[in-house]
């Protein structure tokens, strides 16, 4: 069943997986988020998630432009679709976005192989949200992770 954007986000994201980070590179930021996702109890094999996320990046960077990164992967060792968000304290120059802009906001999504429809829907919803400049500014100006979480929900 394909769920609405709000339903999908509510199911995939929790305030505990929203972070204000101070990482210095794309790799560090992705590893940080992978580790945090691994602690949430929904990932059976963190190494597999790490391999899948970096394998996807090797095909093509998930820097989708406008300072946004959406690393994502589908693997069977994830029990349900989950998401983590990081707003870094500075833009990361090494993200290799499609518009060559540095990335400061990262949404990491991990889903199961059989969740294709909802997975695509969630990525599309995120893309839609961050396309609006006001939403991006709201996220970048947040000072706590709770604030970021609330602003993401509000933007939907």
């Amino acid at each position: 069943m394909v769920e609405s954007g709000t339903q999908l986000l509510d199911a995939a994201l929790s305030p505990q997986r929203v972070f204000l980070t101070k990482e210095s590179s794309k790799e560090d930021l992705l590893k940080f988020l992978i580790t945090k996702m691994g602690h949430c109890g929904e990932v059976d094999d963190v190494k597999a998630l790490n391999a899948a996320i970096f394998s996807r990046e090797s095909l093509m960077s998930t820097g989708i432009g406008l300072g946004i990164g959406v690393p994502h992967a589908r693997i069977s060792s994830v029990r349900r679709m989950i998401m983590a968000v990081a707003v870094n304290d500075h833009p990361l120059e090494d993200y290799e976005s499609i518009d060559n802009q540095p990335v400061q906001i990262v949404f990491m999504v991990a889903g199961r192989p059989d969740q294709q429809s909802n997975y695509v829907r969630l990525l599309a919803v995120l893309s839609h949200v961050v396309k609006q400049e006001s939403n991006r500014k709201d996220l970048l100006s947040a000072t706590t992770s709770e604030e970021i979480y609330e602003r993401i929900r509000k933007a939907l």
Partner: protein
Amino acid sequence: MEVGILLILGIGVFGGILGAWLFQKLRIPQVIGYIAIGLMIGRTGLGIIGEVQIPALRPFSYLALAFIGFLVGGELEGKVFKQYGRQFTGIMLGEGLGAFFTVGIGCGALLWFITGSWATSLAGALVFGAISSATDPASTVDVLWEYRSKGLLTTGLISVVALDDALALTLYALGTTVAGLLVGGEVNVPELVKTLGIELVGSAVLGMCTGLGLSWLLKHSRSADRSLTLLVGSLLLISGVALTFHLDVILCAMAAGATLINHSPHRSKPLLVTLRAFAAPIYVMFFVMVGARLQLDAQPIWLWGLVAIYVTGRTLGKYAGTWIGATLSKSPPLLKNYLGMGLFAQGGVAVGLSMMAGQHLSNVDVMNGLDLGTVVVSAVTATTLLVQLIGPASVKWAITKTSEIGRNVTEEDIIAELNVEDVMNAHPVNLREGELIRDVFDKFATHDQLCFPVVNEEGACMGVISIDSLKSLFVEQEIWAWMLAGDVMVPVKEILEADTPLAEAMETMSQMEAEETILCDRDSQLPLGIFDLRSARRAVSKKLVQRQGTA
């Protein structure tokens, strides 16, 4: 005794199947295999089926004849007769009378040479001639069914073999009447004509009434099982009634089949298909019995001369008679040149008539210790063996030459012959897992593929993208620029192998509500092909049209 008969039935059916299988390997019609096994285990061979068992199994043979007659009758659709009735009747008269005269003259001449009596030789000539005019519908039609033959020649053969039994019975009645008069036996001519009339008309009336009754019953039958039970019950009844009133079982059943197919064609066609499958082991046993019954004892040398003359004369007479009948009735060249080749088989009717002649002519001496009745029985038995070996092979030759083999096929037959690899797309266009969704849509637009294998750098299959899996992306065009094939592919469900039978594959796909699937090599994971139901159905339809051709 009961166990003995059941054991014999088991040995007969299994042995028959084995014989058929061996003969089919040699590209010889299966019916010859059944008869050969019968010969091996019957009177001539090991004697497993001997003097005790043959009479005990006789009701079984009558039932088989009723089944065969009914199925042959079921092939006689009125619309065909409207178009070719004159031609088929002309050919039937030509081939029947052709055999009657050639066999009669040849056998009569030899008998005159042996006996020096013109009365005995003329009596023998009439009886042999009449018996030779009958063609065995059972083995002829069995070959047509075995090779799924369809076309004008096939229709002509079925019609002629169905009709010429009536001609043979008439000729026999006339022949024995005249023979009886010639050799001074007691023959009551009006009584014989009356008996013949009752046999022919009675058989036709009983058959037609049964056909109409069945048609009414089938209209009220709600299940296929019930319909089959009604039909088998009717055939058992009709056989019993026919035997009680000395009617011809095969003619009765034929009339019933023809009446039913013309009265309720839609209801009866699927039922005839079911009956044919149901009757298969009964046929096998029937033909095994035909072989088992044949007895080739030590006979005088000249009797083998009689056999040779009978077989040669009958073969020439049937072929030439067909040609003449076809020419006079302005039949198409296909019927004129080939139909005669399909009329050589001789079976139950001829053997039955020879048995009757054995009684009628037992008081006519040919030479010391040998009467004309015994000569007829021995010669017809030996010729039946010979022509049952030649006849089915000739039918096969005729339908092969006219390219009618394999045309009587249904979609299910074609599906049963194919495997997944026969209909799959073995050279699919692949998608790389790093290919942008934008480009994936382009490929869907430019290739006639409903799904694409997604492969990695090594070419190994990682997943599959179908139109269905792209549906969710139609409205999300903003992500087409950064989503990849690998992001939206779904895992390959290895539900089929290349050698999976098509019927099984279609059933599996239907159960999984899937329209298409990818096949990958188990070891290398390289994509082998795409199987999709739409293309599979298209390939089956194409093959069906090719096979059926134009009649």
